[in-house]
């Protein structure tokens, strides 16, 4: 598509020419009388197109447009209604509240777990004072048996 497929001057016939354009056109036509017939055909076509009757527009067209806009607005607000409280403005504080509750719960659980562990440790340490000196003495004997690398002459002598 390029401008060479038609005479640029013919464009003047597509619309009502301005007085300047009309004068230029007349001057050109006076020198090219052979183009007069084509030019008149072009002008007639333009006039025929411009004289095409308007499509009928209903008298309540504008009212129906406004009604359609109202209907769409009503449908849109109904869709948003039940879920309005999920909107971002109310969602953020709710999310923050949930986060606080969760954090407090986790902290409490952690404290409980630590407390239980401490209790267990305390319970195991409590058993130590129940051992008598005789047990400790024997324990020393038993400990020596465990660390011996060879026959313990001293022990054998005692047992004899």
């Amino acid at each position, binding site marked *: 598509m390029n401008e060479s497929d038609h005479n640029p001057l013919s464009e003047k016939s597509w619309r009502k020419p301005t007085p300047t354009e009309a004068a230029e056109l007349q001057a050109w036509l006076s020198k090219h009388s052979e183009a007069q017939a084509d030019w008149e055909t072009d002008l007639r076509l333009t006039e025929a197109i411009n004289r095409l009757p*308007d*499509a009928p527009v209903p008298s309540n067209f504008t009212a129906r447009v406004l009604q359609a806009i109202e209907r769409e607005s009503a449908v849109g607000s109904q869709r948003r209604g039940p879920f309005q409280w999920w909107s971002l403005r109310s969602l953020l504080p709710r999310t923050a509240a949930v986060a606080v509750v969760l954090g407090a719960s986790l902290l409490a659980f952690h404290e409980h777990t630590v407390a239980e562990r401490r209790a267990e440790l305390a319970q195991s340490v409590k058993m130590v004072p129940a051992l008598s000196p005789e047990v400790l003495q024997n324990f020393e004997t038993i400990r020596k048996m465990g660390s011996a690398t060879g026959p313990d002459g001293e022990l054998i002598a005692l047992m004899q």
Partner: protein
Amino acid sequence: MLRVKQGDVAAFTELVEKYKQPIMNLVYRTIHDPTEAEDLAQNVFVQVFKSAPRYKNTAKFSTWLFTIARNLCLNEIRRRSRHPAESLDVPHPEQEDQPLHQFEDKKTFSPPESLLHGELARKIEEAMADLPENQRSAILLCRQEDLSYEEIADILGCSVSATKSLIHRGRETLKEKLKAYLRSGKWEKTE
């Protein structure tokens, strides 16, 4: 349009009153269905109202408006090509003497009779309807004296030179089909 952006309904009503006729002319001659044309033309203005918050004053309002109108027309044409119309002669399954689809006989708007006067007007309507959509739209938009060729090109989504070529080729086709009437000047007679 800036007032419409601020929610001024009276300003919007003014725009509808000013442009409803040219929009209806374009829409009707693009989709050739009076009922659909009414609905579609109304939808053009509904879309304008809904899009008003996004409107920027960088382009002329009429350019923007006609672009919306043309796009909705193209959507309708594409929708029809995907879903061809059912035959109106299919009989009703329970009442065989009645058609399945019954439509109101709209005598107030029954093209071509109500729209056309004279043989030439009818021939022009037929010839325009036979043109490719882009040529027809280019010629119809060219009727709008307040639209420059640059603005028409924006609406059609092509260059100014391409727009002028569309108009030229469309007009050449119309001249060929209507030459008997145009050369003789008999178009001035009406029936």
